[in-house]
């Protein structure tokens, strides 16, 4: 019995001395190590808070997406994040939250995402959206760059979690941002002169109260006499009882990709629901002609239904 106590005490003393020695050395070296880490990052951190006094904050993240957390004294916190998007090489970026919770900065460090698609996650349009949010908001995805922006948002969510916990801000973890609203404006009356669009009903299928009209219409290209464009084809369903549009969908797109096809969203076509020949429907900003093409198709369908 005595032996065991003796052995245990001996071991404990050895460990205590060892621990003491380690503490001494640690105190000596830890600040050096820390400042080295920050030096390495400083150039990047200064992109957001130039000239600030940075200290590294303990990374308690277990998602593996936060590479480093840095506090800019008196200003906010910068998170260095990494995730994979479309490319097999992960991308790295910084996001900073000011002390008041607003986004203080959003900066790409490295990315091999595809130009014109994932790379848009760091272009002005999306960057401006992000800069306008706060740490309690849900960050939206970027249409046309879903894979990349999903990775970005996931990483930002990890940063938000840490920041909000640190600052004691309550927020809804599971909130999902709505898809960015389609910018529309400039209402066009369904009974206006859209003859130029040459909307022609090519097929009619009656089904009880509703009739589905297949309508072809000129879009931007054909309106301007350019031969390498083709017609847009729409399917318009009209309620025969009250001559309103029940639904409209685009089955063939002949205009400029990336521009005219912006109208091809349920959100836009919803605007047509319930429209009569006397209603007006907005056009999509930046895709006026293609929108008009859809409106002309709706007009043609309503006219055909009304027997005019």
């Amino acid at each position, binding site marked *: 019995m005595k032996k065991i106590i003796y052995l245990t005490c001996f071991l404990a003393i050895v460990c205590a001395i060892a621990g003491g020695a380690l503490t001494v050395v640690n105190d000596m070296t830890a600040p050096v190590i820390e400042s080295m880490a920050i030096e390495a990052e400083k*150039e990047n951190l*200064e*992109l957001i808070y*130039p000239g600030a006094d940075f200290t590294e904050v303990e990374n308690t993240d277990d998602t593996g997406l936060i590479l480093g957390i840095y506090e800019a004294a008196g200003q906010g916190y910068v998170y260095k994040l990494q995730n994979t998007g479309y*490319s097999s090489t992960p991308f790295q970026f910084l996001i900073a939250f000011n002390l008041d919770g607003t986004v203080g900065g959003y900066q790409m460090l*490295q990315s*091999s*995402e*595809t*130009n014109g698609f994932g790379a848009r996650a760091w272009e002005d349009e999306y960057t401006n959206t992000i800069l306008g949010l706060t740490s309690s908001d849900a960050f939206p995805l970027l249409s046309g760059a879903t894979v990349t922006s999903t990775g970005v948002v996931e990483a930002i969510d990890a940063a938000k979690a840490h920041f909000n916990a640190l600052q004691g801000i309550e927020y809804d973890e599971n909130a999902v941002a709505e898809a960015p609203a389609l910018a529309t404006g*400039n209402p066009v009356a369904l009974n206006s002169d859209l003859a130029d669009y040459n909307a022609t009903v090519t097929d009619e299928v009656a089904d009880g109260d509703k009739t589905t009209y297949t309508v072809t219409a000129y879009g*931007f290209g054909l309106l301007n006499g350019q031969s390498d464009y083709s017609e847009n084809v729409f399917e318009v369903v009209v309620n025969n009882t009250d001559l309103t549009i029940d639904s409209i969908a685009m089955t063939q797109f002949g205009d*400029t990709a990336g*521009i005219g096809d912006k109208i091809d969203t349920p959100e836009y076509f919803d605007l047509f629901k319930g429209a009569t020949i006397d209603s007006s429907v907005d056009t999509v*900003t*930046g895709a*006026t*002609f293609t929108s008009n093409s859809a409106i002309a198709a709706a007009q043609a369908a309503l006219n055909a239904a009304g027997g005019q």
Partner: protein
Amino acid sequence: MKFTFKPSPNYRDSQSTQSIMRDLTIGLLVVFAFSLFYYVTGENLGVNYALRACGLLVTSVISAVVTEAIYFAFKKEPIIKSIKGSFGWVTAIILTLMCPINISYYALAISTILAIVFGKLVFGGFGQNIFNPAAFGRAIIMASFAGSVAVDFATSATPTASFAASGWLMSNETFSSFIAQFGGLSEMFIGRYPGAIGETSALVILLVGAFLVYRKVIDWKVIVAYLGTIFVSTLGIGLVNGQGMWYPIFHLLTGGVMFGAVFMLTDPVTNPTSSAGRIIFGIGAAFFTVLIRIKGNLPEGVLYSILLMNMLTPLIERLTTGNQIKIAKKNMRNVAIIFVACLAILLGVSTTMEAKEITINEPVEEIDGITGTAQGFGGEVSVTVATDENGIITKIVAEGTAETPNLGGAAISTFNSEGFAKFEGVALAEADFDTLDTITGSTVTSEAVIEALKQTQGGQTTTQEVTEETTAPTTTEEIDGIVGSAQGFGGEISVTVATDENGIITKIVAEGANETAGLGLDAIETFNNEGFAKFEGVALAEADFDTLDTITGSTVTSEAVIEALKQTQGETTTETTAPETTEAATEENDGIVGTAQGFGGEITVTISVDENGNITSVVAEGANETAGLGLDAIEKFNSEDFTEFEGVALAEADFSTIDTVTGSTVTSKAVVEAAQAAQSAAQQ
């Protein structure tokens, strides 16, 4: 553990080791002769290739023999006799036949030496080695010398590599056009397609194999077990994944399967001694070959399967050792179990296979023009730039048949169909080919294309060049001009813009001594050497410095440079004789006004003329247009497009030549209309 080691062959026979090896050597040389024939007669090849093949063979044989000579001299054994009994040249020939034609002499020599020393001699010489020395040598090449290739022997992508790039799956239709590139399965059987020197002709190899089996030099059981298992398993995999009958045949014909079966798996030194053992050996090798191919995403399944099975030979020996007649039943049972197990695993794994998109290298059009070449990823990349009589680029076509189909080849296709479009209509001498959008994942190929494009510029002299040197010195010069400055990353950045008497930029020099070495400083150097070149010859007032290519990682420095550049524009009023167009507020001018309905409201265009009726300025205004779209378009017209009309007689000005801005069509058209309205108003 009892460990008995029996060097093979270990039974008395009418044959001697000498005669076996002699027949083997003859067989190998027949295969080699066929490949020489292919090189001499094949398209795009020629006698050069045949000579190189011979040169490689000689190199390898000499390396092997000399190495063995040194070894035997060191061990103080009679040299000539020992070399004759060591058959090093067989290893050398097999290794050479496994290599591609463009391997460098050095790589082959070193690998042969290492293969002989570490693959054979350290184990005790001929008959004592565990691993097939040629396979070992080939593995060394793959590990160390993958990039060590002779540049002037272009190889096209081999069918194995291309197929592997598509994940070893391909739809039946894609396959027909894919295989047509190589002449169809029949040509693949005969062996007239690109591949390793000796591995391509299944026909010749099988004939030689049959001969060797007849002469009892090699054991047919290994060959049948190996090829049979590959056939059955790939048939199953093909069926599971919806491939046609061509699938198992393709597997058999590619990647050195035939060659490995006849010449390497049958090596009696490294395979088991009993028949059942050899069958298991063949089945196991087939298993690994197929598994590595479909899941390892390597084309070289055969090589590693041979080495792996060599390693397992002692185990197989233990399993099948004993009086062969007595344990025949046990042997058959074991063989069956192993066969079924391997098949099951392969079929199971094959359900996780996914086809990858593969773009077949399309044949490119032939055009006349200036050619430039550069070394791409797999071989040479060439571009042809066709220009009209004014030196304006009309078309660019790139070609790189040796690039990997899915990556470099796809990049080249993209360039040909879209990427080069931005250079059409640009003067060749001024084209900045660095702005070609490189494709992710094909950096080497993309950069080779850019390199080749720049070559075509090499002989051109620009007509409007000022007598400045074309390569900027690395130390920043002192030049006179307008100075702008801005705060950079580490300190102040200044730019000096030198202009001629017409306000055209002749040279820009930036300086920022306090920027970070390696980042900002390098960025400034890049600007000085290349980045500013695009502004030379442009009127300072019209230069859009925002288009300066910023350098990644030196954003602060880059933006400070742009800032400083913009500053220099603010002071140009006194320098230029042409009337300026300010960027922000539109000036109030007296002149003829025309209006038209824009997108959000009215658009007015004011045209001022001098006493001769020549346009002095055109200014558009449309405050109700959409920010970011119409407003930006108006700004563009004011700063760029309208300047073309200055000095032109109003009556003759054709405003319809103004390009509409994408996304702001309505605004653009309204501006044109308004200008035309002003024009007609003036004529009344």
